[in-house]
């Protein structure tokens, strides 16, 4: 599904990511762990085009996508989230969701004049889908509320729902459960597992080992920009190199 070949990036004298190669299989949940500053988020930024690569290639569904702009990569079905929740604060919960579907007819200016019926139908379909989704995550009473008025956990949940609406083939999640309570973590994990059952592929940065152990099929470990280990969650937990990287002994 996603193939990374020798990704490298330096910021000044600091090697943020060094020669990272990996293959991520379809319909799997792959984890990415490592101490703070080990280059996890940079790696995500490199894959999704937010930062330019120094060296290396990225293939998504066998198509070379490195060098494309972020929105071009996203519209090919590879969508990411950010470490801090990035809902659109002064848009309603409903609007946040309605924005997500890709390639909407109503986003084209000419179509607003010439294809009014189609735009309307599409909008109605999306609206139904969004409302049922909002109901599922329990935010229905807040649907016309600005997203900035939600709690942080609710915003994270809304972000997951937005991904669901966007319906990409592969999703990169940057610490989806950071800073929220255990109940909300459970909800977000359920979201991830449901979407996997629908055939989605995930690549997840996560510090919470419980989430990694329960969700992930495969884990990469990054330290100082280098891949120091990979394997199933069980193997990783017992790998002395990983323990060393985390504890610094």
């Amino acid at each position, binding site marked *: 599904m996603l193939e990374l070949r020798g990704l490298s990036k330096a910021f000044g004298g600091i090697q943020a990511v060094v020669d990272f190669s990996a293959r991520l299989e379809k319909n799997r949940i792959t984890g990415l762990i490592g101490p703070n500053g080990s280059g996890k988020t940079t790696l995500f930024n490199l894959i999704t085009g937010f930062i330019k690569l120094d060296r290396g290639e990225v293939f998504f569904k066998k198509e070379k996508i490195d060098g494309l702009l972020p929105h071009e990569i*996203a*519209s090919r079905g590879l969508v990411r989230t950010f470490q801090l929740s990035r809902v*659109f604060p002064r848009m309603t919960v409903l*609007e946040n969701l*309605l*924005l997500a579907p890709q390639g909407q007819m109503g986003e084209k200016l000419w179509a607003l004049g010439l294809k*009014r019926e189609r735009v309307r139908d599409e*909008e*109605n379909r999306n609206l*139904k889908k969004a409302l049922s989704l909002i109901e599922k995550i329990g935010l229905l009473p807040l649907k016309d509320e600005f997203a900035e008025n939600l709690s942080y956990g609710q915003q994270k949940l809304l972000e997951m729902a937005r991904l669901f609406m966007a319906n990409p083939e592969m999703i990169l999640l940057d610490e989806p459960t950071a800073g929220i309570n255990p109940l909300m973590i459970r909800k977000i994990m359920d979201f991830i597992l449901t979407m996997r059952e629908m055939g989605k592929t995930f690549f997840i940065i996560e510090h919470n080992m419980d989430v990694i152990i329960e969700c992930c099929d495969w884990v990469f470990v990054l330290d100082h920009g280098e891949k120091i280990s990979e394997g199933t969650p069980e193997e990783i937990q017992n790998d002395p190199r990983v323990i060393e990287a985390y504890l610094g002994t």
Partner: protein
Amino acid sequence: MDLFLHLCVMCLIYIIFALSLNLEIGYTGLFNFGHVAFFGIGAYTSALLTLHHFPFELGLVMALTLSGIFGFLLGLPSLRLRGDFFGIATLGFGEMIRMVFQNEVWLTKGPMGLPGIPKPTLFSFRFATLPQYFLLTLGFTAITFLFLRILIRSPFGRVLKAIREDEIAAEALGKNAYRFKIKSFVVGSIFAGLAGALWGHYTTFISPNDFTLLETILVLLIVVLGGKGTEWGPLLGAALLIFFQESLRFLRLPPEYGRYLAPLQQMIFGALLIFMMLFRPEGLIKERGRRVYAGTQRVE
């Protein structure tokens, strides 16, 4: 009665001008400090063409086209800049266009200005009297308002708002922010051009001095006062400020105080802007989330 109609016409023209800026500032988050340039381009284009005996219809169409083209040309490089830098680039453009009006004497007659701009004739009906002109501007204002409302309420407008809120997150969702910003900017410029053309034919005399930074500040104040990012904000803002500004002119002051009037007005505007920023930054009308979407029923 004439005075009242005059106020209404001025008000309507500024409503169009403010609506176009609201699309950029209020909905797309583009702080355009050179909006008056497009007002000026619209005014000069239509005035020059009709002064050379071309029909008003052509003048108007060309005014809109040229404003749009210049909007596109300015947007192409400047919309790659973010936030403050974009503002400074537009500020520069605004001054640049004014210098063109002032110095390209062969075209614009320079500081002498263009007197005697004819009243418009649309489909062989001449809008010569004040009530007729009022109806003409009212019609154009209604068209502008409805057109921009459709745009804002559509999925297109939703993307604009998302870009205003968080450009990077919008791109992460596959929206080409740059392209949407250019479209918004071009549409905004076109309607500013419309306002300019209507204004030129109304006052019948335009000169480079009419298109200074002060005009940009006035229209900015209208949008901020009324409530940016709201459908009715620019209407309210324009009504309040234009009535205030124009009625000052008819204040019967002893002549020796008359010269204080213009600076005083600027001071009041400045104070108002500071006051709004401090105490009600969202404007008189507050932005709220839309409850029902265009063409969709409530599904509950």
